[in-house]
C-alpha cells in the first residue's frame, strides 16, 4: 500500500513536471491538446522512472542475503518518505484546486505566492523526503535504493526540460 502511494505520487510529480517544462514554449492561445501531450509525456517519464526503480528494487532483492528484513526496511522507509511527500502533494493539489474558483486575482495569487515557491522547493522536498526516509534504514541496500530513486526523480524534470528546449529551439529555428 505504501509503495503504491509512492508510485501514485511519482505519477503526479511526473504529470506536473511535464506541464511545467512545456510552459512558455507554445505561444498559441488554445493549447489544450499541447498541454495534454505534455502531461502524458510527464506521466510516461514517471512511468519509465518507476519501472527503473522497480527493476533496481527487484535486482537488489534478488542479490540480498536477507530478503525479509529488506522488504520490511523498504516498507518502513517508504512510509517515512510519505510523511514528507504527502503534505507537499496536498499543498500543491489544494492550490491547483483553488484555481477552479473563477477569480483572476485568486488564480494569479496561487501561481505567484504558492505554486511558484512550491516549484522552487521541489528538489529540496525530494532530497528531504528521501533522506528522512533512509535515515531510519537499517540496511545499506535500502539506502542505496533510496538514493538511486532520488537521482531518478531529480533527473526526470531535467530530462523533460532538455527535450522541451530542444523541440522549441528547432521550432524557432524554422521561423527565423
Amino acid at each position, binding site marked *: 500500500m505504501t509503495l503504491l502511494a509512492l508510485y501514485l505520487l511519482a505519477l503526479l510529480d511526473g504529470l506536473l513536471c511535464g506541464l511545467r517544462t512545456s510552459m*512558455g514554449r507554445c505561444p498559441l*492561445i488554445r493549447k489544450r491538446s499541447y498541454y495534454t501531450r505534455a502531461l502524458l509525456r510527464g506521466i510516461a517519464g514517471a512511468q519509465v522512472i518507476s519501472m527503473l526503480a522497480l527493476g533496481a528494487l527487484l535486482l537488489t532483492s534478488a542479490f540480498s542475503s536477507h530478503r525479509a528484513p529488506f522488504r520490511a526496511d523498504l516498507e518502513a522507509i517508504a512510509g517515512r518518505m510519505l510523511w514528507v511527500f504527502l503534505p507537499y502533494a496536498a499543498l500543491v493539489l489544494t492550490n491547483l484546486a483553488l484555481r477552479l474558483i473563477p477569480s*483572476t486575482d485568486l488564480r494569479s495569487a496561487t*501561481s*505567484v505566492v504558492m505554486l*511558484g515557491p512550491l516549484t522552487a522547493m521541489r528538489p529540496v522536498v525530494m532530497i528531504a523526503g528521501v533522506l528522512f526516509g533512509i535515515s531510519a534504514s537499517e540496511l545499506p541496500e535500502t539506502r542505496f535504493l533510496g538514493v538511486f530513486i532520488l537521482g531518478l526523480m531529480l533527473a526526470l524534470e531535467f530530462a523533460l526540460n532538455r527535450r522541451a*528546449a530542444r523541440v522549441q*529551439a528547432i521550432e524557432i529555428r524554422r521561423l527565423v
Partner: protein
Amino acid sequence: MFPAWDAAQPEITDLIVQHDPGTLQRLPVRKQELVEVFSKFRNRKALRAVQALPENGGILDEREIDALFLTVHWEMQRLAEEFYHGNRVWEILRPVVACIRQSGIRDTLRIVDVGCGIGYSTRWLAAKIPLAEHNIEVIGMDLNSTLIAEANRLATAESLPCQFLHGDAFSSQHSNHVLLSTGVIHHFRGPALFEFLRRHDQPGLQAFLHFDFQPWFLAPLGSLFFHYLRMRTAIARHDGVLSTIRAHSARTLTEAARSSAPGFAAGIYGARIWSTPAPRVFHTLVGLRHKLVPELHRQLGRHAMRLGELR
C-alpha cells in the same frame, strides 16, 4: 542598490533590435555599444547577457537575435497567461466599449494594441470574445517586423479574427477608437512619456488603456523570484526585473496623461486586490473622453470601486 536595479538604464531588449524611425528598416547593432551602455551602469548581469549574444564582426547576428527575441516573447506570454492578462484586459475594455457605444458611435470600433509583440492580448481577445457581436476590430501593431510576422503566423494558425501590422500605431494613416498596451509605457521616460501620451490626442480616439507593472517596495524582489523561477533566458530574467523597477508610479502616469492629453480624463484602474491594501502586480492607466466618464462608472457596476479618480 544593485547595479542591475538602476532605473536609469535601458533594458537589454530595448537595445538589441533597433529600427530607423522613419523607414522602420532594421539597423545593425554594434555589440560594443551595448557593452559600453551597461559598463557605465556597472551592471555585470547585463554585461554577461550581452557578451553571450552572437555576433558577426562586432555586429549582432540578426537571425540569432530574432530567435532569442521569439524565445523571450514566448516565455513572456506564459507570464501573461499566469496573470490571466486577457481576462484583465477584457474586464476594463468591455465597459469602455459599452460606454463608447452609449455615446452614439455605431461604427466598427477599432482597438489597437500598441507595441503588441507577438500579440497575446490581441489574439486572446480574438479567441475568447465574440468580436463580431460587439462590432469590434482588434489590431496589433509593433515596430519589430519579426514579432509581427510571428503574431500573424499564430493568428493564422488558430484562424483568429485579428490582424497585425508592422508600423507606428500613432501614424496619421490609422484612425483608432481605443489604444491599449501591456508593459510598454515604462519604456517611455521623462519627456518621451509626455510625448507618447501627447500623441494620443487624436480626433477619433475615445479611450486608452495602458497596462504596466505597479511599483511598490516589494515588487523588485517578487519579480526577481518570479522571473528566476519562470523565465529561462538571462535577458528575460534581467529585463523582467528591471521592468518592475522602471515602472512608473500611478501619480507619474496620471499627471503625465492629464497634462499631455487634456482631452481625456485619466486615472488608474485595478491598483488593489479586491478591497484590500494589497497591490496588484499590474495597474492600468485609463484615459477616456470626459463626456464618457459617468457612463463608464455605470458600466463598471460592482467593479467601479477598482477605478481611481478619473479626471
